[in-house]
C-alpha cells in the first residue's frame, strides 16, 4: 500500500518536470509579456525597460527557467509580477475556495446523477428512461457559461434568492452563507457533470444487471431491492468512483468558465488572469499546483478503489 503510493509519487516527478518545462517554453513563445500589463497603456519605452529589469525578465530564458526550477524545488515559486505577492500565497488563498467548490459541485452532480441513473437503468427503454436520458443529454449539450448566466438571471436577478457573484465563505465559518454562495456555481458545474455521471452509471448498472451474479442472487430468492441496492450498486459504483474522482480533479483547474461567470475566487480564474497578464511565475505556480492536485486526487481515488475493491491487491 505504501509502496503503491510511493510508486505513484515517483511517477509524478517526470510528469511535473515535463509539464513545467513545456509550460516555460510555451510561456516564452507567447507574444506579449507581463510588463505591458503592469506598466499601463501609456508607458514609455524607458518605463518598460526599467520594469523588465526590475523583474529579471531581461535575463536569458534558460537562466530564468533554471532559477525558477531551483527555487521551486526548494518550495519557492517566486513572486507574482502583477499581484506583487508570493505565488504560493496567492494560490493558497484560492485553494480552499476551489476545493470547496469542487466538493460542492461533486456532491450536486452525485445527488442528481445517481438517482437519475438508477431510475433509468432499472427500466431500460421505458418512457422514464427516455426522459432521464434526455436530461443527461441536455445537461451535456447546454454550454456551462450559458447555463450559468441563465441561473443568475433566474435565481439572483429575478427571484433574488441567491447572490449572483459568489464569494468564498468557508463552510465551517458560515454554513448558510457558504451554501448560498456555492449554490449557483455548484449547480452549474454539477448539472453538467451529472449528465456525464448519470450516463456512465446507467451504463454500468445496465451491464451489471445482466451479470451472472445477479441471476445467482435472484436464484436465491433475494428481494429485488436488495439485489439492486447491495449486489448491483456495489459493483457499479466501483468504476464510478474513478469517474467521480476524475471529475473532481477536473474541477480544480477546469472550472474556468464557471468561475468567470460567477466571479468565484478559484484557481482557474487566477490562472486565466495570469495568462492574460502573462504573469509568468503565477502561471507556472498555478499549473504545477493544478497538476499536483489532479494527480493527487486520481491517486487517492486509485488507492480508495484498491481499498474498496477486494480484487485489487497492492503490490
Amino acid at each position, binding site marked *: 500500500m505504501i509502496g503503491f503510493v510511493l510508486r505513484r509519487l515517483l511517477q509524478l516527478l517526470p510528469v511535473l518536470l515535463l509539464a513545467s518545462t513545456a509550460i516555460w517554453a510555451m510561456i516564452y513563445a507567447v507574444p506579449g509579456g507581463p510588463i505591458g500589463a503592469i506598466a*499601463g*497603456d501609456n508607458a514609455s519605452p524607458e518605463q518598460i525597460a526599467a520594469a523588465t529589469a526590475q523583474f529579471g525578465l531581461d535575463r536569458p530564458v534558460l537562466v530564468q527557467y533554471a532559477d525558477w526550477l531551483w527555487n521551486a524545488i526548494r518550495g519557492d515559486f517566486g513572486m507574482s509580477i502583477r499581484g506583487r505577492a508570493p505565488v504560493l500565497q496567492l494560490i493558497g*488563498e484560492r485553494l480552499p475556495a476551489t476545493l470547496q467548490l469542487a466538493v460542492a459541485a461533486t456532491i450536486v452532480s452525485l445527488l442528481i446523477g445517481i438517482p437519475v441513473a438508477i431510475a433509468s437503468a432499472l427500466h431500460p427503454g421505458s418512457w422514464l428512461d427516455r426522459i432521464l436520458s434526455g436530461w443527461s443529454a441536455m445537461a451535456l449539450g447546454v454550454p456551462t457559461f450559458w447555463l450559468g448566466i441563465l441561473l443568475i438571471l433566474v435565481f439572483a436577478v429575478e427571484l433574488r434568492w441567491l447572490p449572483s457573484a459568489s464569494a468564498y465563505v468557508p463552510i465551517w465559518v458560515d454554513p448558510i452563507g457558504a451554501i448560498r454562495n456555492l449554490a449557483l456555481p455548484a449547480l452549474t458545474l454539477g448539472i453538467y457533470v451529472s449528465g456525464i455521471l448519470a450516463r456512465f452509471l446507467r451504463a454500468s448498472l445496465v451491464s451489471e444487471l445482466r451479470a451472472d451474479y445477479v441471476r445467482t442472487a435472484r436464484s436465491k430468492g433475494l428481494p429485488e431491492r436488495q439485489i439492486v441496492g447491495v449486489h448491483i450498486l456495489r459493483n457499479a459504483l466501483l468504476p464510478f468512483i474513478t469517474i467521480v474522482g476524475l471529475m473532481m480533479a477536473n474541477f480544480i483547474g477546469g472550472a474556468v468558465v464557471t468561475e468567470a*461567470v460567477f466571479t468565484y*475566487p478559484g484557481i482557474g480564474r487566477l490562472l486565466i488572469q495570469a495568462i*492574460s497578464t*502573462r504573469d509568468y511565475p503565477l502561471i507556472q505556480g498555478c499549473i504545477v499546483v493544478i497538476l499536483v492536485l489532479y494527480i493527487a486526487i486520481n491517486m487517492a481515488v486509485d488507492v480508495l478503489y484498491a481499498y474498496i475493491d477486494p480484487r485489487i491487491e497492492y503490490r
Partner: protein
Amino acid sequence: GTNWIAPAHAEEAALKGGTLRVALLSDMTNYDPQQFSTVNFHLVKNLYDSLIEYTAEGEAVPSLATAWQIAPDNTSVTVTLRDDVTFHSGAKLTSADVAATLAKAADPKRGKNVYATMSIVKDWTTPDANTVTINFKAPVPLRQITDLLQFTIPIEAAGIDTVETVPAGTGAYMLDSRAVGQGLTLKANPNYWRKGQPIAEKVDFTIFSEDASASAALESDAVDLIYGGTSRSAVRLKDAGYQMVRGPGPLVMVFRINSTRAPFTNAKFRQAFNYLMDREGMLRVGYAGLGEVVALPWAPASPAFNAAYTEEFAYNIDKAKELIAASGLTPAEMSNWKMLVWGNDEPSVVLSQILQSALAEVGINIELDVRQGAEYTEAQLAGDYDTTFGAVGNVQKFPSRVATNSIYRGVKNPVLKDPHPHADYVAAIAQVNTTSGPDEAVKASYDNLNRVLVNDAFAIPTNSYDTGLIVASPKLGGLSLDIDNLFVARTVGFQ
C-alpha cells in the same frame, strides 16, 4: 479660500455610513499614484489626495494645498500645504514629502506617467515645512501649472520606494486587505483631515470578469455600485431605475495610424480616414450613445475644443473616395495592412468592425488582428501596429497634455519614433506650450494645432466616452467623480 469645495452632489442630506460594495471589471496593478491608469482609477483618489483639485467645470480648488501663488512671469509657483494632514502611517505631511514626490516624478526611471508633465519643471525648493516652490524652465501657461499641481499627489517620503506594493498616501481610506485578482478592501482613515469624511467605514471592491455578472450583481443587490462598467449596461440600468453618474473627464477614442509604415506614409490616404468614421454609429453601437462625437482629441471642457471640426469631418464616403483617389495608391497597396484590435474592449471591437465595413465600402478589404490582454498592450506600447483604436486621456486639460499619450508624443513617440515624422505637429505643440498670452495668440496657437492634427491625420479621434462610469443603487448618495473620472468614495453614503 481655505475651505474645501465639495464635489458635485456633496451637500445632500446627511448620509449614513456602512460598507460600500463596489464592482470593478479589472484588477489594479500597483499603488503608485504616479502610475495611475484606468486599472487603478478606483484607488488613487481614495488612498491619496493631490495638491489641488479641479471642479467639474475645470476650476482649480484647494486640497492638500491651501494656496498656490504663481509668479507674475509664470516661471514659478509657490504652494502652501495644510498643516493638519497625516499619512496613513501617522507621519505628518511636510514639504519634504512633496519634494520627494517631485523628485520621483522627475526621474525618468521612476516618474512613470507624471514624468512627461514634469518636463516644464526646472527645480523646486522647500523654504519651510509647509511651503514648496516649483521653478519652471520657461514661462508656463496658467492652466498647465494647475494641471501640474493637480497631478502632484504627495507620497510619504519614507515609503516612496515601496509605493508600488504598499500605499503611502494621505487619502480618506487606507488599505485593509487585498486578494489578488479577486478584490480589495479599504477602511476609513480615522485621522482624515476632511471633517465628516469618509462616510462609509469600508469599501469593498470586487473584480468581475464579466460586465453581465457585474450588472447582475448590482441587480441582485450583491453590490451597491459598479465603477467602470460598460456604457450599454449603464444606460440599461439607468432605465431600470439605477443612478448613473458621468464624470467630467471622458476619454477620447482615437484611431491611431502608424504613419511611418506604408501605405500610411501617404498623407492623403491618412486624411481620408477623417471622413471614413461613422462617428454617430460608433458612439451609438459602441457606447450606447453616451459621449460626444469628436474629430479632435478634446473634450468640450478643453480650451482647444472646437465643434466646427466635428461638422467638417462628418462621415462622408465620397470625400474619402476623393482623397483615396488623390493618394495615387493602388488598391493592393491600400489593402496591405491590418487593424490591431484590443479584444478585451468590446467597444474597440465594435468600432473596428464598423470601420472595417466602411473601408470595404471604399474597396479596401483588410483583416482585424484581434489580440487579448498583455499581447495587445505590448504591441500597442511598442508601436508595433499599422493602425489601432485606442483611447487617450487628459482631453479636458491643457491642450499640450495630449502629448502624454503615446500616439501624440512629440519626442520618443513609440509608434512614430524619432525623429518625429510630423515636424509641423511638434512645432504646433511647442507653440501652444510657449504661448501664454494674449488670448488671440493663444487661440491662434490652438487653431493651428487643430488644423495640423487633421492634416497630419496620424490620429483620428472618433468620440469621447465615459471612463469610470458609475452605476449605483438608488440607496446611495454623494456619488461623484473627479475631473479625471477617478472614483471618490469618501463622499458616498447610504440614504
